[in-house]
Protein backbone atom coordinates (compact mmCIF):
# COMPACT_ATOMS: atom_id res chain seq x y z
CA UNK A 1 0.00 0.00 0.00
CA UNK A 2 1.39 3.35 -0.91
CA UNK A 3 0.00 6.46 0.65
CA UNK A 4 -0.80 9.40 -1.57
CA UNK A 5 0.37 12.58 0.07
CA UNK A 6 -2.08 15.39 -0.47
CA UNK A 7 -1.31 18.79 0.91
CA UNK A 8 -4.00 20.62 -1.05
CA UNK A 9 -6.72 20.23 1.56
CA UNK A 10 -4.69 21.40 4.48
CA UNK A 11 -3.76 24.63 2.75
CA UNK A 12 -7.25 25.31 1.38
CA UNK A 13 -7.83 27.55 4.30
CA UNK A 14 -4.55 29.26 5.16
CA UNK A 15 -6.32 31.33 7.82
CA UNK A 16 -6.18 28.33 10.15
CA UNK A 17 -2.40 28.41 10.09
CA UNK A 18 -2.22 32.19 10.31
CA UNK A 19 -4.54 32.28 13.30
CA UNK A 20 -2.55 29.54 14.98
CA UNK A 21 0.66 31.42 14.34
CA UNK A 22 -0.88 34.57 15.82
CA UNK A 23 -1.83 32.63 18.92
CA UNK A 24 1.66 31.17 19.24
CA UNK A 25 3.35 34.56 18.87
CA UNK A 26 0.88 36.20 21.23
CA UNK A 27 1.47 33.58 23.90
CA UNK A 28 5.24 33.63 23.49
CA UNK A 29 5.30 37.42 23.89
CA UNK A 30 2.95 37.33 26.88
CA UNK A 31 5.12 34.66 28.51
CA UNK A 32 8.27 36.68 27.88
CA UNK A 33 6.63 39.83 29.24
CA UNK A 34 6.29 38.00 32.55
CA UNK A 35 9.47 35.91 32.48
CA UNK A 36 11.98 38.70 31.82
CA UNK A 37 11.01 41.24 34.50
CA UNK A 38 10.08 38.62 37.10
CA UNK A 39 13.27 36.71 36.33
CA UNK A 40 15.36 39.82 36.80
CA UNK A 41 13.57 40.61 40.05
CA UNK A 42 14.14 37.05 41.32
CA UNK A 43 17.83 37.24 40.41
CA UNK A 44 18.20 40.51 42.30
CA UNK A 45 16.38 39.15 45.33
CA UNK A 46 18.47 36.01 45.26
CA UNK A 47 21.79 37.85 45.29
CA UNK A 48 20.50 40.52 47.67
CA UNK A 49 21.30 38.33 50.69
CA UNK A 50 18.21 39.63 52.48
CA UNK A 51 17.90 36.82 55.05
CA UNK A 52 14.50 35.19 54.52
CA UNK A 53 13.71 36.49 51.06
CA UNK A 54 16.74 35.21 49.19
CA UNK A 55 16.16 31.81 50.78
CA UNK A 56 12.54 31.74 49.67
CA UNK A 57 13.57 32.78 46.17
CA UNK A 58 16.07 29.91 45.93
CA UNK A 59 13.31 27.48 46.87
CA UNK A 60 10.88 29.03 44.44
CA UNK A 61 13.40 28.75 41.62
CA UNK A 62 14.27 25.13 42.38
CA UNK A 63 10.70 23.96 42.89
CA UNK A 64 9.18 25.65 39.87
CA UNK A 65 11.92 24.29 37.64
CA UNK A 66 11.15 20.74 38.75
CA UNK A 67 7.51 20.87 37.63
CA UNK A 68 6.71 19.97 34.02
CA UNK A 69 5.47 22.99 32.08
CA UNK A 70 2.34 21.13 31.04
CA UNK A 71 1.46 20.40 34.69
CA UNK A 72 1.84 24.09 35.50
CA UNK A 73 -0.41 25.04 32.62
CA UNK A 74 -3.09 22.67 33.91
CA UNK A 75 -2.61 24.00 37.41
CA UNK A 76 -3.04 27.61 36.36
CA UNK A 77 -6.01 26.77 34.16
CA UNK A 78 -7.97 24.36 36.36
CA UNK A 79 -6.73 24.71 39.91
CA UNK A 80 -5.88 28.37 40.48
CA UNK A 81 -9.24 29.81 39.36
CA UNK A 82 -11.09 27.54 41.82
CA UNK A 83 -8.62 28.29 44.57
CA UNK A 84 -8.51 32.04 44.17
CA UNK A 85 -12.05 32.46 42.88
CA UNK A 86 -10.92 34.28 39.75
CA UNK A 87 -11.73 33.84 36.10
CA UNK A 88 -8.79 32.71 34.06
CA UNK A 89 -8.73 32.49 30.29
CA UNK A 90 -6.61 30.06 28.30
CA UNK A 91 -4.17 32.80 27.29
CA UNK A 92 -3.80 34.07 30.84
CA UNK A 93 -3.33 30.63 32.35
CA UNK A 94 -0.81 29.54 29.74
CA UNK A 95 1.17 32.77 29.83
CA UNK A 96 1.26 32.71 33.63
CA UNK A 97 2.49 29.13 33.62
CA UNK A 98 5.13 29.66 30.94
CA UNK A 99 5.99 33.11 32.32
CA UNK A 100 6.48 32.14 35.93
CA UNK A 101 8.36 28.99 35.04
CA UNK A 102 10.41 30.93 32.51
CA UNK A 103 11.15 33.48 35.23
CA UNK A 104 12.78 30.79 37.35
CA UNK A 105 15.06 29.86 34.45
CA UNK A 106 15.70 33.49 33.47
CA UNK A 107 16.57 34.32 37.08
CA UNK A 108 19.47 31.88 37.02
CA UNK A 109 20.68 33.31 33.71
CA UNK A 110 20.54 36.87 35.02
CA UNK A 111 22.26 35.84 38.23
CA UNK A 112 25.11 34.24 36.30
CA UNK A 113 25.25 37.36 34.14
CA UNK A 114 25.43 39.70 37.12
CA UNK A 115 28.08 37.61 38.81
CA UNK A 116 30.09 37.43 35.59
CA UNK A 117 30.78 41.16 35.71
CA UNK A 118 34.30 41.56 37.03
CA UNK A 119 34.60 42.72 40.60
CA UNK A 120 36.95 45.48 39.55
CA UNK A 121 34.05 47.23 37.85
CA UNK A 122 32.33 47.69 41.16
CA UNK A 123 35.49 48.92 42.83
CA UNK A 124 36.15 51.34 40.00
CA UNK A 125 32.61 52.65 40.42
CA UNK A 126 33.20 53.16 44.12
CA UNK A 127 36.47 54.89 43.46
CA UNK A 128 34.61 57.23 41.11
CA UNK A 129 32.29 58.11 44.00
CA UNK A 130 29.17 56.58 42.43
CA UNK A 131 26.38 55.46 44.72
CA UNK A 132 25.63 51.76 45.01
CA UNK A 133 22.48 52.22 42.99
CA UNK A 134 24.35 54.04 40.22
CA UNK A 135 27.01 51.36 40.17
CA UNK A 136 24.40 48.67 39.80
CA UNK A 137 22.07 50.31 37.32
CA UNK A 138 24.64 52.05 35.15
CA UNK A 139 27.66 49.79 35.34
CA UNK A 140 26.83 46.26 36.41
CA UNK A 141 23.38 45.70 34.90
CA UNK A 142 24.12 46.74 31.29
CA UNK A 143 27.14 44.43 31.22
CA UNK A 144 25.23 41.64 32.94
CA UNK A 145 22.40 41.73 30.42
CA UNK A 146 24.87 41.86 27.57
CA UNK A 147 26.77 38.86 28.92
CA UNK A 148 23.61 36.84 29.32
CA UNK A 149 22.05 37.69 25.94
CA UNK A 150 23.02 34.44 24.16
CA UNK A 151 21.55 32.30 26.94
CA UNK A 152 18.50 34.54 27.04
CA UNK A 153 17.97 33.73 23.37
CA UNK A 154 18.16 30.01 24.18
CA UNK A 155 15.64 30.48 26.99
CA UNK A 156 13.34 32.44 24.69
CA UNK A 157 13.51 29.54 22.24
CA UNK A 158 12.59 27.09 25.01
CA UNK A 159 9.66 29.29 25.98
CA UNK A 160 8.51 29.45 22.37
CA UNK A 161 8.66 25.67 22.12
CA UNK A 162 6.65 25.53 25.33
CA UNK A 163 3.77 27.46 23.77
CA UNK A 164 2.86 24.29 21.86
CA UNK A 165 1.68 22.85 25.19
CA UNK A 166 -1.04 25.46 25.60
CA UNK A 167 -3.19 23.72 23.02
CA UNK A 168 -3.87 21.10 25.69
CA UNK A 169 -6.07 23.55 27.58
CA UNK A 170 -7.67 24.77 24.39
CA UNK A 171 -5.62 27.87 23.65
CA UNK A 172 -5.73 28.31 19.87
CA UNK A 173 -2.02 28.26 19.05
CA UNK A 174 -0.44 26.45 16.11
CA UNK A 175 -0.51 22.91 17.51
CA UNK A 176 -4.14 23.27 18.58
CA UNK A 177 -5.23 24.71 15.25
CA UNK A 178 -3.31 21.97 13.49
CA UNK A 179 -4.99 19.18 15.42
CA UNK A 180 -8.39 20.70 14.64
CA UNK A 181 -7.42 20.76 11.00
CA UNK A 182 -6.19 17.17 11.15
CA UNK A 183 -9.52 16.04 12.56
CA UNK A 184 -11.49 17.97 10.00
CA UNK A 185 -9.56 16.92 6.92
CA UNK A 186 -8.54 13.41 7.99
CA UNK A 187 -5.02 14.33 6.91
CA UNK A 188 -3.01 14.02 10.14
CA UNK A 189 0.14 12.93 8.32
CA UNK A 190 0.27 16.06 6.17
CA UNK A 191 -0.87 18.37 8.95
CA UNK A 192 1.54 17.17 11.64
CA UNK A 193 4.43 16.92 9.21
CA UNK A 194 3.84 20.50 8.09
CA UNK A 195 3.56 21.59 11.69
CA UNK A 196 6.80 19.85 12.66
CA UNK A 197 8.65 21.30 9.66
CA UNK A 198 7.34 24.74 10.43
CA UNK A 199 8.64 24.60 13.99
CA UNK A 200 11.89 23.13 12.76
CA UNK A 201 12.47 26.06 10.41
CA UNK A 202 11.39 28.80 12.81
CA UNK A 203 13.24 27.48 15.84
CA UNK A 204 16.36 26.74 13.76
CA UNK A 205 16.34 30.32 12.50
CA UNK A 206 15.98 31.59 16.05
CA UNK A 207 18.87 29.53 17.34
CA UNK A 208 20.95 30.54 14.33
CA UNK A 209 20.28 34.17 15.18
CA UNK A 210 21.32 33.40 18.74
CA UNK A 211 24.63 31.97 17.56
CA UNK A 212 25.34 35.01 15.39
CA UNK A 213 24.59 37.27 18.34
CA UNK A 214 26.89 35.24 20.54
CA UNK A 215 29.75 35.47 18.03
CA UNK A 216 29.28 39.20 17.63
CA UNK A 217 29.21 39.80 21.36
CA UNK A 218 32.34 37.79 22.00
CA UNK A 219 34.10 39.58 19.14
CA UNK A 220 33.30 43.02 20.48
CA UNK A 221 34.19 41.80 23.94
CA UNK A 222 37.68 40.90 22.75
CA UNK A 223 38.01 44.27 21.08
CA UNK A 224 37.01 46.03 24.26
CA UNK A 225 39.52 44.07 26.26
CA UNK A 226 42.31 44.94 23.88
Amino acid at each position, binding site marked *: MTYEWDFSQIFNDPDVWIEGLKGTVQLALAGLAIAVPVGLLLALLRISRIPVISYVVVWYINLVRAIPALVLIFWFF*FALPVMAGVQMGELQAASFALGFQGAAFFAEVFRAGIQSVAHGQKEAGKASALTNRQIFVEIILPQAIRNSLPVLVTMTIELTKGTALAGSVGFPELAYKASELANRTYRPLEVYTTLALFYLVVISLMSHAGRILERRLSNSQHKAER
Partner: protein
Amino acid sequence: MSWFDMSVLIKNYRLLISGIDATVAVSAASIAAGMVIGAIVGMAGSSSNRLLNWLARAYVETFRNIPVIILVFWMYYALPILIAWQANRFTSAFLALALYAGSYCGEIWRSGLKSVARHQTEGAEALGFGYWSSMRYVILPQAARNMFPSFVTMGVDTTKMSAVASAIAYPELLYKGQLVAGTFYRPIEAYTGVAVIFIVIIGGFTIAMDWVERRLTKYGTR
Protein backbone atom coordinates in the same frame (compact mmCIF):
# COMPACT_ATOMS: atom_id res chain seq x y z
CA MET B 1 -15.67 21.72 52.99
CA SER B 2 -12.07 22.67 53.23
CA TRP B 3 -10.57 24.09 50.09
CA PHE B 4 -7.74 21.61 50.13
CA ASP B 5 -8.93 18.09 50.79
CA MET B 6 -6.02 15.66 50.95
CA SER B 7 -8.32 12.67 51.24
CA VAL B 8 -9.14 12.73 47.53
CA LEU B 9 -5.45 12.06 46.85
CA ILE B 10 -5.16 9.45 49.57
CA LYS B 11 -8.26 7.61 48.38
CA ASN B 12 -6.86 7.50 44.86
CA TYR B 13 -3.33 6.57 45.79
CA ARG B 14 -3.37 3.41 43.68
CA LEU B 15 -4.34 5.41 40.63
CA LEU B 16 -1.59 7.92 41.27
CA ILE B 17 1.00 5.23 41.88
CA SER B 18 0.12 3.54 38.61
CA GLY B 19 0.61 6.98 37.05
CA ILE B 20 4.04 7.28 38.65
CA ASP B 21 4.85 3.81 37.31
CA ALA B 22 3.92 4.81 33.79
CA THR B 23 5.84 8.09 34.03
CA VAL B 24 8.94 6.34 35.31
CA ALA B 25 8.62 3.56 32.72
CA VAL B 26 8.42 5.81 29.68
CA SER B 27 11.03 8.23 31.06
CA ALA B 28 13.54 5.53 31.96
CA ALA B 29 13.13 3.78 28.61
CA SER B 30 13.52 7.08 26.73
CA ILE B 31 16.54 8.15 28.76
CA ALA B 32 18.27 4.82 28.16
CA ALA B 33 17.47 4.83 24.45
CA GLY B 34 18.43 8.49 24.22
CA MET B 35 21.85 7.80 25.70
CA VAL B 36 22.48 5.06 23.15
CA ILE B 37 21.26 7.20 20.24
CA GLY B 38 23.35 10.03 21.66
CA ALA B 39 26.47 7.86 21.71
CA ILE B 40 26.05 7.02 18.03
CA VAL B 41 25.21 10.60 17.09
CA GLY B 42 28.02 11.99 19.24
CA MET B 43 30.63 9.66 17.72
CA ALA B 44 29.36 10.51 14.24
CA GLY B 45 29.48 14.19 15.12
CA SER B 46 33.06 14.06 16.37
CA SER B 47 34.40 11.80 13.62
CA SER B 48 36.49 13.19 10.79
CA ASN B 49 33.97 12.05 8.18
CA ARG B 50 32.14 15.05 6.74
CA LEU B 51 28.98 13.16 5.82
CA LEU B 52 28.68 11.63 9.29
CA ASN B 53 29.23 15.09 10.80
CA TRP B 54 26.48 16.53 8.70
CA LEU B 55 24.05 13.71 9.49
CA ALA B 56 24.70 14.06 13.22
CA ARG B 57 24.20 17.82 13.03
CA ALA B 58 20.95 17.39 11.09
CA TYR B 59 19.64 14.86 13.59
CA VAL B 60 20.41 17.03 16.59
CA GLU B 61 18.96 20.18 15.03
CA THR B 62 15.79 18.39 13.95
CA PHE B 63 14.81 16.79 17.21
CA ARG B 64 15.95 19.63 19.37
CA ASN B 65 13.93 22.21 17.54
CA ILE B 66 10.58 20.48 17.17
CA PRO B 67 8.50 20.70 20.35
CA VAL B 68 8.17 17.23 21.90
CA ILE B 69 4.39 17.41 22.04
CA ILE B 70 4.35 17.74 18.26
CA LEU B 71 6.67 14.75 17.95
CA VAL B 72 4.28 12.80 20.17
CA PHE B 73 1.32 13.78 18.00
CA TRP B 74 3.27 12.89 14.91
CA MET B 75 4.20 9.45 16.22
CA TYR B 76 0.67 8.72 17.34
CA TYR B 77 -1.46 10.21 14.57
CA ALA B 78 0.79 10.62 11.53
CA LEU B 79 3.25 7.73 11.60
CA PRO B 80 0.57 4.99 11.46
CA ILE B 81 -0.61 6.33 8.11
CA LEU B 82 2.90 6.29 6.74
CA ILE B 83 3.86 2.78 7.81
CA ALA B 84 0.42 1.23 8.22
CA TRP B 85 1.13 0.20 11.79
CA GLN B 86 -0.39 1.83 14.82
CA ALA B 87 2.10 2.25 17.62
CA ASN B 88 0.40 2.08 21.01
CA ARG B 89 0.46 5.04 23.37
CA PHE B 90 3.56 3.92 25.22
CA THR B 91 5.50 3.31 22.01
CA SER B 92 4.47 6.63 20.48
CA ALA B 93 5.47 8.57 23.57
CA PHE B 94 8.65 6.53 23.88
CA LEU B 95 9.68 7.15 20.26
CA ALA B 96 9.12 10.89 20.57
CA LEU B 97 10.90 11.22 23.91
CA ALA B 98 13.77 8.94 22.90
CA LEU B 99 14.42 10.92 19.72
CA TYR B 100 14.35 14.12 21.76
CA ALA B 101 16.61 12.72 24.46
CA GLY B 102 18.87 11.37 21.71
CA SER B 103 19.40 14.83 20.27
CA TYR B 104 20.16 16.18 23.73
CA CYS B 105 22.60 13.33 24.40
CA GLY B 106 24.23 13.67 21.00
CA GLU B 107 25.53 17.07 22.05
CA ILE B 108 26.58 15.75 25.46
CA TRP B 109 28.54 12.91 23.89
CA ARG B 110 30.11 15.16 21.30
CA SER B 111 31.39 17.68 23.84
CA GLY B 112 32.22 14.87 26.27
CA LEU B 113 34.43 13.17 23.71
CA LYS B 114 35.95 16.53 22.84
CA SER B 115 36.66 17.21 26.52
CA VAL B 116 39.21 14.42 26.64
CA ALA B 117 42.49 15.92 25.58
CA ARG B 118 43.63 15.08 22.09
CA HIS B 119 46.98 13.69 23.21
CA GLN B 120 45.09 10.95 25.06
CA THR B 121 43.88 9.63 21.70
CA GLU B 122 47.33 10.04 20.24
CA GLY B 123 48.87 8.30 23.21
CA ALA B 124 46.50 5.38 22.83
CA GLU B 125 47.27 5.23 19.14
CA ALA B 126 51.00 5.20 19.84
CA LEU B 127 50.44 2.26 22.18
CA GLY B 128 48.75 0.40 19.36
CA PHE B 129 45.13 0.81 20.41
CA GLY B 130 42.57 0.80 17.63
CA TYR B 131 39.58 3.18 17.51
CA TRP B 132 37.26 1.00 19.55
CA SER B 133 39.74 -0.12 22.17
CA SER B 134 41.07 3.39 22.68
CA MET B 135 37.44 4.48 23.11
CA ARG B 136 36.76 1.68 25.54
CA TYR B 137 39.88 1.92 27.71
CA VAL B 138 41.15 5.47 27.33
CA ILE B 139 38.56 7.98 26.13
CA LEU B 140 35.25 6.78 27.57
CA PRO B 141 36.30 6.33 31.20
CA GLN B 142 37.49 9.93 31.23
CA ALA B 143 34.64 11.33 29.17
CA ALA B 144 32.04 9.56 31.32
CA ARG B 145 32.94 11.58 34.39
CA ASN B 146 32.76 14.83 32.46
CA MET B 147 29.43 13.92 30.90
CA PHE B 148 27.73 12.69 34.06
CA PRO B 149 26.25 16.01 35.27
CA SER B 150 24.90 16.76 31.80
CA PHE B 151 23.24 13.37 31.65
CA VAL B 152 21.54 14.11 34.96
CA THR B 153 20.16 17.38 33.58
CA MET B 154 19.00 15.51 30.49
CA GLY B 155 17.30 12.88 32.63
CA VAL B 156 15.45 15.55 34.60
CA ASP B 157 14.40 17.26 31.41
CA THR B 158 13.19 14.08 29.74
CA THR B 159 11.20 13.04 32.82
CA LYS B 160 9.50 16.44 32.93
CA MET B 161 8.86 16.22 29.21
CA SER B 162 7.14 12.85 29.61
CA ALA B 163 4.08 14.72 30.91
CA VAL B 164 3.24 15.62 27.31
CA ALA B 165 2.36 11.97 26.76
CA SER B 166 -0.90 12.76 28.55
CA ALA B 167 -1.94 14.54 25.35
CA ILE B 168 -2.37 11.15 23.66
CA ALA B 169 -3.91 9.66 26.81
CA TYR B 170 -0.86 7.64 27.81
CA PRO B 171 -1.78 6.92 31.44
CA GLU B 172 1.13 8.70 33.10
CA LEU B 173 0.95 10.89 36.19
CA LEU B 174 -0.57 14.02 34.69
CA TYR B 175 -3.19 11.97 32.88
CA LYS B 176 -4.12 10.25 36.14
CA GLY B 177 -4.30 13.68 37.73
CA GLN B 178 -6.75 14.73 35.05
CA LEU B 179 -8.87 11.69 35.86
CA VAL B 180 -8.91 12.54 39.56
CA ALA B 181 -9.64 16.20 38.86
CA GLY B 182 -12.47 15.34 36.49
CA THR B 183 -14.06 12.53 38.45
CA PHE B 184 -14.12 14.21 41.86
CA TYR B 185 -14.26 17.86 40.77
CA ARG B 186 -11.08 18.39 42.72
CA PRO B 187 -8.69 20.20 40.37
CA ILE B 188 -6.77 21.96 43.16
CA GLU B 189 -5.83 18.78 44.97
CA ALA B 190 -5.27 16.77 41.81
CA TYR B 191 -2.98 19.20 39.99
CA THR B 192 -1.16 20.36 43.10
CA GLY B 193 -0.67 16.70 43.99
CA VAL B 194 0.73 15.94 40.55
CA ALA B 195 3.08 18.92 40.77
CA VAL B 196 4.31 17.84 44.20
CA ILE B 197 4.85 14.26 43.07
CA PHE B 198 6.88 15.52 40.12
CA ILE B 199 8.95 17.68 42.47
CA VAL B 200 9.60 14.64 44.67
CA ILE B 201 10.55 12.41 41.72
CA ILE B 202 12.82 15.04 40.14
CA GLY B 203 14.25 16.11 43.51
CA GLY B 204 14.91 12.52 44.58
CA PHE B 205 16.55 11.71 41.26
CA THR B 206 18.77 14.80 41.46
CA ILE B 207 19.84 14.09 45.03
CA ALA B 208 20.59 10.44 44.23
CA MET B 209 22.62 11.42 41.18
CA ASP B 210 24.56 14.07 43.13
CA TRP B 211 25.52 11.32 45.54
CA VAL B 212 26.64 9.06 42.71
CA GLU B 213 28.62 11.90 41.22
CA ARG B 214 30.38 12.61 44.49
CA ARG B 215 31.40 8.98 44.68
CA LEU B 216 32.61 9.04 41.10
CA THR B 217 34.83 12.03 41.77
CA LYS B 218 35.96 10.64 45.09
CA TYR B 219 37.20 7.36 43.69
CA GLY B 220 38.14 8.50 40.25
CA THR B 221 41.30 10.32 39.42
CA ARG B 222 40.50 13.55 37.72
